[in-house]
Protein backbone atom coordinates (compact mmCIF):
# COMPACT_ATOMS: atom_id res chain seq x y z
CA UNK A 1 0.00 0.00 0.00
CA UNK A 2 1.43 3.40 -0.89
CA UNK A 3 0.34 6.95 -0.24
CA UNK A 4 -0.49 7.15 -3.92
CA UNK A 5 -3.21 4.57 -3.24
CA UNK A 6 -4.29 6.35 -0.06
CA UNK A 7 -3.23 10.00 -0.26
CA UNK A 8 -4.32 10.73 3.32
CA UNK A 9 -1.50 8.52 4.59
CA UNK A 10 1.77 10.48 4.88
CA UNK A 11 5.00 9.03 3.48
CA UNK A 12 6.73 6.57 5.84
CA UNK A 13 9.26 8.00 8.30
CA UNK A 14 12.86 7.16 7.48
CA UNK A 15 16.17 7.48 9.30
CA UNK A 16 19.33 5.97 7.84
CA UNK A 17 22.30 4.99 9.98
CA UNK A 18 25.83 3.99 9.06
CA UNK A 19 27.69 2.14 11.81
CA UNK A 20 31.45 2.43 11.37
CA UNK A 21 33.93 -0.16 12.69
CA UNK A 22 35.59 2.47 14.87
CA UNK A 23 32.33 3.04 16.74
CA UNK A 24 31.18 6.18 15.00
CA UNK A 25 27.53 6.34 14.02
CA UNK A 26 26.52 8.54 11.11
CA UNK A 27 22.86 9.46 10.70
CA UNK A 28 20.74 10.83 7.88
CA UNK A 29 17.15 12.11 8.17
CA UNK A 30 17.30 11.86 11.92
CA UNK A 31 13.87 11.99 13.57
CA UNK A 32 13.41 13.16 17.19
CA UNK A 33 12.61 9.63 18.32
CA UNK A 34 15.71 8.21 16.66
CA UNK A 35 17.87 10.96 18.16
CA UNK A 36 16.66 9.97 21.63
CA UNK A 37 17.48 6.32 20.95
CA UNK A 38 20.99 7.18 19.71
CA UNK A 39 21.61 9.28 22.81
CA UNK A 40 20.76 6.28 24.97
CA UNK A 41 23.35 4.27 23.03
CA UNK A 42 26.00 6.93 23.56
CA UNK A 43 25.13 9.51 26.22
CA UNK A 44 28.47 11.28 25.68
CA UNK A 45 27.84 12.08 22.02
CA UNK A 46 27.45 15.84 22.07
CA UNK A 47 26.24 16.15 18.48
CA UNK A 48 23.27 13.92 19.26
CA UNK A 49 22.63 15.37 22.71
CA UNK A 50 22.08 18.79 21.17
CA UNK A 51 19.52 17.33 18.81
CA UNK A 52 17.36 15.63 21.37
CA UNK A 53 14.23 17.64 22.02
CA UNK A 54 13.97 18.33 25.76
CA UNK A 55 10.20 18.73 26.26
CA UNK A 56 8.32 15.57 27.19
CA UNK A 57 6.21 15.89 24.07
CA UNK A 58 8.57 16.45 21.13
CA UNK A 59 7.08 17.34 17.75
CA UNK A 60 6.17 14.30 15.72
CA UNK A 61 5.39 13.94 12.08
CA UNK A 62 1.62 14.38 11.81
Amino acid at each position, binding site marked *: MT*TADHPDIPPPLVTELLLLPDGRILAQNLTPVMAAILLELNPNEEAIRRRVIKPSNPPKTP
Partner: protein
Amino acid sequence: MIASMTNRPARARTNAALARSMLAECRFCAHDCAVNRLAGPGGRCHAGADTRCFCAQVEVTDELELIPTYAVAFSGCDLRCAFCITGAESWDARAGEPFDAAKTAARVVAALERGARTVMVLGGEPTVHLHAALELVSLLPSDARLVWKTNAHGSGQARSLLDGMFDVWLADYKFGNDHCARNLAQIPDYTAVTRENLCWAASHGELIVRHLLMPGHLECCWKPVANWLAAELPGVKMNLRAGFWPAWQARRHEELRVPIRPDESEAAFDLARKLGLNLIP
Protein backbone atom coordinates in the same frame (compact mmCIF):
# COMPACT_ATOMS: atom_id res chain seq x y z
CA MET B 1 14.84 41.38 -0.24
CA ILE B 2 12.60 40.02 2.46
CA ALA B 3 10.95 43.12 3.90
CA SER B 4 7.69 41.56 4.94
CA MET B 5 6.24 38.10 4.62
CA THR B 6 2.67 39.24 5.20
CA ASN B 7 1.69 38.92 1.56
CA ARG B 8 3.94 35.97 0.88
CA PRO B 9 1.16 33.41 0.30
CA ALA B 10 -0.48 35.61 -2.35
CA ARG B 11 2.81 36.32 -4.11
CA ALA B 12 3.74 32.66 -3.93
CA ARG B 13 0.47 31.76 -5.62
CA THR B 14 1.24 34.18 -8.45
CA ASN B 15 4.82 32.94 -8.77
CA ALA B 16 3.71 29.30 -8.70
CA ALA B 17 1.43 29.91 -11.66
CA LEU B 18 4.25 31.71 -13.48
CA ALA B 19 6.66 28.90 -12.71
CA ARG B 20 4.24 26.29 -13.98
CA SER B 21 3.87 28.15 -17.28
CA MET B 22 7.66 28.40 -17.57
CA LEU B 23 7.88 24.60 -17.60
CA ALA B 24 7.05 24.91 -21.30
CA GLU B 25 10.67 26.01 -21.76
CA CYS B 26 12.36 25.06 -18.53
CA ARG B 27 15.31 27.22 -17.50
CA PHE B 28 15.04 26.77 -13.73
CA CYS B 29 18.61 25.55 -13.32
CA ALA B 30 21.94 26.50 -14.83
CA HIS B 31 21.82 23.59 -17.29
CA ASP B 32 19.41 25.82 -19.23
CA CYS B 33 17.86 22.85 -21.06
CA ALA B 34 14.86 24.88 -22.38
CA VAL B 35 12.83 21.68 -22.81
CA ASN B 36 9.04 21.50 -22.60
CA ARG B 37 8.44 19.66 -19.35
CA LEU B 38 4.69 20.05 -19.74
CA ALA B 39 5.02 17.44 -22.50
CA GLY B 40 6.97 15.06 -20.27
CA PRO B 41 10.46 14.51 -18.89
CA GLY B 42 13.19 15.78 -21.18
CA GLY B 43 15.95 17.76 -19.54
CA ARG B 44 19.02 16.84 -17.50
CA CYS B 45 16.88 16.32 -14.37
CA HIS B 46 14.54 13.92 -16.20
CA ALA B 47 11.56 15.55 -14.48
CA GLY B 48 8.29 16.35 -16.15
CA ALA B 49 5.64 18.69 -14.79
CA ASP B 50 4.46 16.32 -12.07
CA THR B 51 6.15 16.50 -8.70
CA ARG B 52 6.81 13.56 -6.44
CA CYS B 53 7.91 13.53 -2.82
CA PHE B 54 10.06 10.84 -1.22
CA CYS B 55 10.23 12.07 2.36
CA ALA B 56 8.15 14.40 4.53
CA GLN B 57 8.78 14.31 8.25
CA VAL B 58 10.02 16.13 11.33
CA GLU B 59 13.82 15.93 11.48
CA VAL B 60 16.62 17.05 13.78
CA THR B 61 19.61 16.37 11.52
CA ASP B 62 20.10 19.92 10.31
CA GLU B 63 21.60 23.07 11.84
CA LEU B 64 20.64 23.54 15.51
CA GLU B 65 19.03 26.91 14.81
CA LEU B 66 16.69 25.28 12.29
CA ILE B 67 15.57 22.15 14.13
CA PRO B 68 13.18 20.56 14.65
CA THR B 69 12.25 21.14 11.04
CA TYR B 70 9.45 19.68 8.94
CA ALA B 71 11.38 18.54 5.87
CA VAL B 72 9.68 18.01 2.51
CA ALA B 73 11.93 16.26 -0.01
CA PHE B 74 11.07 16.31 -3.71
CA SER B 75 12.30 13.56 -6.02
CA GLY B 76 14.72 14.46 -8.80
CA CYS B 77 17.81 16.63 -9.12
CA ASP B 78 19.74 18.49 -11.80
CA LEU B 79 23.10 17.30 -10.45
CA ARG B 80 24.51 13.77 -10.51
CA CYS B 81 26.69 13.62 -7.42
CA ALA B 82 28.17 10.13 -7.26
CA PHE B 83 28.16 10.20 -3.45
CA CYS B 84 24.55 11.41 -3.09
CA ILE B 85 23.13 10.10 0.18
CA THR B 86 19.67 9.96 -1.42
CA GLY B 87 20.87 8.95 -4.87
CA ALA B 88 18.04 6.55 -5.68
CA GLU B 89 15.44 9.26 -5.14
CA SER B 90 17.48 12.25 -6.23
CA TRP B 91 18.47 10.76 -9.58
CA ASP B 92 14.96 9.51 -10.28
CA ALA B 93 12.18 12.09 -10.48
CA ARG B 94 9.70 9.19 -10.63
CA ALA B 95 10.65 8.01 -7.14
CA GLY B 96 8.40 8.56 -4.13
CA GLU B 97 4.75 9.46 -4.13
CA PRO B 98 2.72 12.11 -5.97
CA PHE B 99 3.04 15.44 -4.20
CA ASP B 100 -0.19 16.94 -2.88
CA ALA B 101 0.42 20.55 -1.81
CA ALA B 102 -2.78 20.92 0.21
CA LYS B 103 -2.30 17.71 2.20
CA THR B 104 1.37 18.48 2.78
CA ALA B 105 0.53 22.01 3.93
CA ALA B 106 -1.95 20.58 6.45
CA ARG B 107 0.77 18.28 7.83
CA VAL B 108 3.22 21.18 7.97
CA VAL B 109 0.77 23.33 9.93
CA ALA B 110 0.15 20.46 12.36
CA ALA B 111 3.92 20.00 12.83
CA LEU B 112 4.39 23.73 13.48
CA GLU B 113 1.63 23.63 16.09
CA ARG B 114 3.45 20.71 17.76
CA GLY B 115 6.71 22.59 17.99
CA ALA B 116 8.56 22.38 14.67
CA ARG B 117 10.59 25.60 14.29
CA THR B 118 10.99 25.66 10.55
CA VAL B 119 9.78 24.15 7.30
CA MET B 120 12.50 22.94 4.96
CA VAL B 121 11.92 22.36 1.26
CA LEU B 122 14.60 20.22 -0.31
CA GLY B 123 15.22 17.38 -2.71
CA GLY B 124 16.87 16.00 -4.68
CA GLU B 125 16.87 19.62 -5.69
CA PRO B 126 13.75 21.68 -5.06
CA THR B 127 14.58 24.12 -7.88
CA VAL B 128 13.56 21.35 -10.28
CA HIS B 129 10.08 21.56 -8.73
CA LEU B 130 9.91 25.31 -8.25
CA HIS B 131 6.25 25.40 -9.28
CA ALA B 132 5.28 22.83 -6.63
CA ALA B 133 7.46 24.41 -3.94
CA LEU B 134 5.85 27.80 -4.50
CA GLU B 135 2.41 26.23 -4.47
CA LEU B 136 3.24 24.78 -1.06
CA VAL B 137 4.48 28.18 0.18
CA SER B 138 1.22 29.74 -0.95
CA LEU B 139 -0.64 27.44 1.44
CA LEU B 140 1.56 28.01 4.50
CA PRO B 141 1.15 30.61 7.24
CA SER B 142 2.97 33.83 6.37
CA ASP B 143 4.81 33.78 9.69
CA ALA B 144 6.22 30.26 9.21
CA ARG B 145 10.02 30.23 8.98
CA LEU B 146 10.77 28.67 5.60
CA VAL B 147 14.10 27.19 4.55
CA TRP B 148 15.16 26.63 0.93
CA LYS B 149 17.71 23.80 0.93
CA THR B 150 19.45 23.98 -2.41
CA ASN B 151 22.50 22.89 -4.38
CA ALA B 152 22.96 26.53 -5.48
CA HIS B 153 22.83 25.57 -9.15
CA GLY B 154 19.65 27.48 -9.96
CA SER B 155 19.25 30.08 -12.70
CA GLY B 156 18.52 33.79 -12.55
CA GLN B 157 14.98 32.96 -13.60
CA ALA B 158 14.57 30.67 -10.59
CA ARG B 159 16.02 33.29 -8.26
CA SER B 160 13.57 35.92 -9.49
CA LEU B 161 10.67 33.60 -8.66
CA LEU B 162 12.16 32.75 -5.25
CA ASP B 163 12.83 36.33 -4.20
CA GLY B 164 11.12 36.91 -0.85
CA MET B 165 9.64 33.43 -0.68
CA PHE B 166 11.99 31.79 1.84
CA ASP B 167 13.47 33.17 5.05
CA VAL B 168 16.67 31.14 4.89
CA TRP B 169 18.69 29.78 2.02
CA LEU B 170 20.59 26.69 3.14
CA ALA B 171 22.95 26.27 0.22
CA ASP B 172 25.61 23.71 -0.58
CA TYR B 173 29.05 24.74 -1.77
CA LYS B 174 30.20 21.23 -2.64
CA PHE B 175 33.23 21.50 -4.90
CA GLY B 176 36.20 23.83 -4.81
CA ASN B 177 36.92 23.65 -8.52
CA ASP B 178 35.24 22.81 -11.82
CA HIS B 179 37.30 19.67 -12.42
CA CYS B 180 36.01 17.91 -9.30
CA ALA B 181 32.48 19.12 -10.07
CA ARG B 182 32.65 17.62 -13.56
CA ASN B 183 34.26 14.42 -12.33
CA LEU B 184 32.02 13.77 -9.33
CA ALA B 185 28.71 15.38 -10.34
CA GLN B 186 28.77 15.89 -14.12
CA ILE B 187 28.42 19.67 -13.84
CA PRO B 188 30.14 22.21 -16.10
CA ASP B 189 30.81 25.75 -14.86
CA TYR B 190 30.08 24.80 -11.26
CA THR B 191 32.15 27.43 -9.53
CA ALA B 192 30.78 30.49 -11.31
CA VAL B 193 27.15 29.37 -10.99
CA THR B 194 27.44 28.48 -7.32
CA ARG B 195 29.21 31.68 -6.36
CA GLU B 196 26.61 33.74 -8.22
CA ASN B 197 23.82 32.00 -6.30
CA LEU B 198 25.54 32.34 -2.94
CA CYS B 199 26.19 36.06 -3.43
CA TRP B 200 22.59 36.61 -4.48
CA ALA B 201 21.23 34.66 -1.51
CA ALA B 202 23.44 36.56 0.93
CA SER B 203 22.12 39.87 -0.36
CA HIS B 204 18.47 38.82 -0.48
CA GLY B 205 17.94 37.25 2.94
CA GLU B 206 19.65 34.91 5.38
CA LEU B 207 22.19 32.47 4.00
CA ILE B 208 23.74 29.39 5.57
CA VAL B 209 26.44 27.69 3.51
CA ARG B 210 27.13 24.01 3.85
CA HIS B 211 30.18 22.06 2.81
CA LEU B 212 30.37 18.30 3.12
CA LEU B 213 33.97 17.26 3.61
CA MET B 214 34.91 14.57 1.10
CA PRO B 215 37.82 12.21 1.77
CA GLY B 216 40.83 13.18 -0.32
CA HIS B 217 39.28 16.51 -1.33
CA LEU B 218 40.49 18.85 1.38
CA GLU B 219 43.13 20.59 -0.72
CA CYS B 220 41.19 20.72 -3.97
CA CYS B 221 37.68 21.35 -2.62
CA TRP B 222 37.49 22.45 0.99
CA LYS B 223 40.45 24.82 0.91
CA PRO B 224 39.24 26.88 -2.08
CA VAL B 225 35.70 26.95 -0.68
CA ALA B 226 36.95 28.15 2.70
CA ASN B 227 39.24 30.78 1.20
CA TRP B 228 36.51 32.15 -1.05
CA LEU B 229 33.96 32.34 1.76
CA ALA B 230 36.45 34.14 3.99
CA ALA B 231 37.23 36.66 1.27
CA GLU B 232 33.86 37.20 -0.40
CA LEU B 233 31.22 36.38 2.22
CA PRO B 234 32.93 37.16 5.53
CA GLY B 235 30.74 36.37 8.51
CA VAL B 236 28.33 34.20 6.56
CA LYS B 237 27.05 31.26 8.59
CA MET B 238 28.92 28.13 7.63
CA ASN B 239 28.18 24.52 8.52
CA LEU B 240 31.13 22.23 7.89
CA ARG B 241 29.92 18.65 7.82
CA ALA B 242 32.19 15.69 8.49
CA GLY B 243 29.58 12.96 8.14
CA PHE B 244 30.49 11.79 4.64
CA TRP B 245 29.65 8.21 3.96
CA PRO B 246 30.34 6.25 0.79
CA ALA B 247 26.76 6.16 -0.46
CA TRP B 248 25.19 5.53 -3.85
CA GLN B 249 27.91 5.40 -6.53
CA ALA B 250 30.75 6.79 -4.42
CA ARG B 251 32.67 3.55 -4.87
CA ARG B 252 33.27 4.46 -8.50
CA HIS B 253 35.78 6.98 -7.17
CA GLU B 254 38.59 5.35 -5.23
CA GLU B 255 39.06 8.17 -2.74
CA LEU B 256 35.35 8.20 -1.90
CA ARG B 257 35.17 4.56 -0.80
CA VAL B 258 35.75 5.43 2.86
CA PRO B 259 34.33 7.85 5.43
CA ILE B 260 36.27 10.99 6.28
CA ARG B 261 39.19 10.31 8.64
CA PRO B 262 39.23 12.06 12.02
CA ASP B 263 42.56 13.74 11.18
CA GLU B 264 41.13 15.08 7.89
CA SER B 265 38.16 16.46 9.77
CA GLU B 266 40.40 18.10 12.37
CA ALA B 267 42.55 19.70 9.68
CA ALA B 268 39.46 21.06 7.95
CA PHE B 269 38.11 22.62 11.12
CA ASP B 270 41.55 24.04 11.92
CA LEU B 271 41.55 25.83 8.56
CA ALA B 272 38.04 27.17 9.18
CA ARG B 273 39.10 28.59 12.53
CA LYS B 274 42.30 30.03 11.08
CA LEU B 275 40.31 31.86 8.40
CA GLY B 276 37.78 33.10 10.95
CA LEU B 277 34.80 31.42 9.34
CA ASN B 278 31.53 31.74 11.22
CA LEU B 279 31.02 28.05 11.94
CA ILE B 280 27.63 27.00 13.23
CA PRO B 281 26.66 23.56 14.54
